[in-house]
């Protein structure tokens, strides 16, 4: 089972897509250009501090708001390995899966982790923090299929006989 460890950044409930990447930066040419502005309305310093392999821990309804796919893309571009939230807004959920960003639903770690802590994730199995394991549920099979293909683009390329 795939396993990784990362440093945690903690966010609250209802982190909306205008916080993740404000509309005024959506016309920038690439997601790389948008990176410095991620989370800027709420925590302008955050984008500069996130390191490759870090993990976001948030409350309920993460990614609510618009359908902008740049939201999961910019989070992935910052190097975030996965998000652990109590729940996700549905469009964000689909967009994240389609872009190969791992989302985990869990409502217990929020009470125990603090920003800067290290946690270990064993995919489709458990989150470990301070020697304690918090079980996580598996994703539905059709979504695992998209992630396994490496996202929706790769799944469609396969369909069109390109890969």
């Amino acid at each position, binding site marked *: 089972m795939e396993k990784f460890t990362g440093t945690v950044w903690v966010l609250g409930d209802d982190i909306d897509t205008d916080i993740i990447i404000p*509309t005024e930066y959506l016309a920038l040419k690439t997601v790389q250009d948008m990176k410095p502005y991620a989370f800027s309305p709420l925590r302008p310093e955050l984008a500069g501090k996130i390191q490759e392999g870090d993990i976001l821990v948030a409350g309920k*309804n993460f990614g609510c708001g*618009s*359908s902008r796919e740049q939201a999961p893309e910019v989070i992935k571009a910052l190097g975030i390995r996965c998000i652990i939230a109590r729940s996700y*807004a549905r469009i964000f959920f689909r967009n994240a899966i389609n872009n190969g960003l791992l989302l985990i639903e869990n409502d217990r770690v929020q009470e125990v982790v603090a920003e800067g802590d290290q946690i270990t994730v064993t995919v489709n199995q458990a989150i470990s923090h301070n020697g304690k394991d918090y079980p996580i549920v598996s994703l539905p099979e059709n979504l695992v299929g998209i992630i396994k293909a490496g996202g929706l683009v790769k799944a469609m390329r396969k369909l069109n006989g390109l890969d």
Partner: protein
Amino acid sequence: MSATMIEKIIERNVGKAVKPGDIVTVFADRVMIHDIFIPFVAEKFEEMGFQRLWDPDKVVLIYDHLVPASQVDDTRHFQVGNAFVEKYGLTHVHRSDGICHQLMPEAGYVKPGDVVFGTDSHTTTYGCVGAFSSGIGYTEMASILGTGTMWIRVPETIKVTVTGKMPENVTSKDIILRLIGDLGADGATYKALEFAGDTVEEMSIASRMTMANMAIEAGAKCALFAPDEKTAAYCETELTKEQKALAADRDASYVREITYRAEDLVPVLACPSQVDNIKPVKELKGLPIDQVFIGSCTNGRLEDLMAAAEILKGKKVAPFVKLIVTPASRKVYQEAAENGTLSILAEAGAIITHPGCGLCCGRTGGILTDGERVVATNNRNFLGRMGTSRVEIFLASPRTAAASAVAGQIAEAGF
């Protein structure tokens, strides 16, 4: 088997019985792409290796968020869009006709029972005519353009019944804001909302649009009104037997049922900076404001502009307040010009802009700064939505917005 409205629409589309939780592949009857996302859709479509659109007649491209361009980079979106139109033979293209969610029903692209996807979260709006419509990202849109299909999870349904006669100052905006407050910003996540009761049956399609539009603010996948004679008149069609049968069965099964008595409702505001932070206008009366915005896909229709004009007629906007009015489409603009509404608004001191999304998403015009307060008829009061992150956005009905513009502070019409 008894079924809710969304179950009936999906069953009709896939040709077999479904139940909530099932994952099925549906066929898109229509899709909509707007200017912000067309470059990304085009890029993903080609990266996926598709050579042609599955059905160019079912694809609608609308420029609205960036029209007219306010930054040099915006023009690239139009260029990429125009090249895509040329290369793949799109015929339904609107370059300056108004906001996508107004145009889709208004121009007849959506019919009762249709399955529609759009690259914008407020795509839920078309439930006003009994269509299942939902927002998706640009990668998924690219795959639909190639295949015409998309997987969905059949949602559970929350039934919302409103009965009785609404008080004079209460509009459909106040009902949907109250519902979002009661459900919470994630209270309907993954679920369908179904509206019923004599109050919604009495409502115009425009008022129903306002409610379906904001369903996403409670996380809903879609929001549905059963098609009736008003729907038929709006869509300029006669309802088929199949479309008439889309209304939920009496014994359909709901995950939750909520009932309101219209007489109990009051004008409300969504306070900074959560859409579910709902308070009665009375409680905030007197709070000074800097700007008022009447427009957007939520409340920029003729009846909204006329409601504002009724309050503003013969009055002046407070001297330190900017009142900005944006008709939702060219058609709305023309109708409001022809029936004298725009003239009343201009006389009162309103700034009237071209149709589009600019103000609502803080993209063109009407930007505010730290410590400023705006009463707005659009759908989101998120941090930084209409300027800096220290702007306070209060969402309200056009009546409350117009009364506040005159008072220079939050005010209830008629008080």
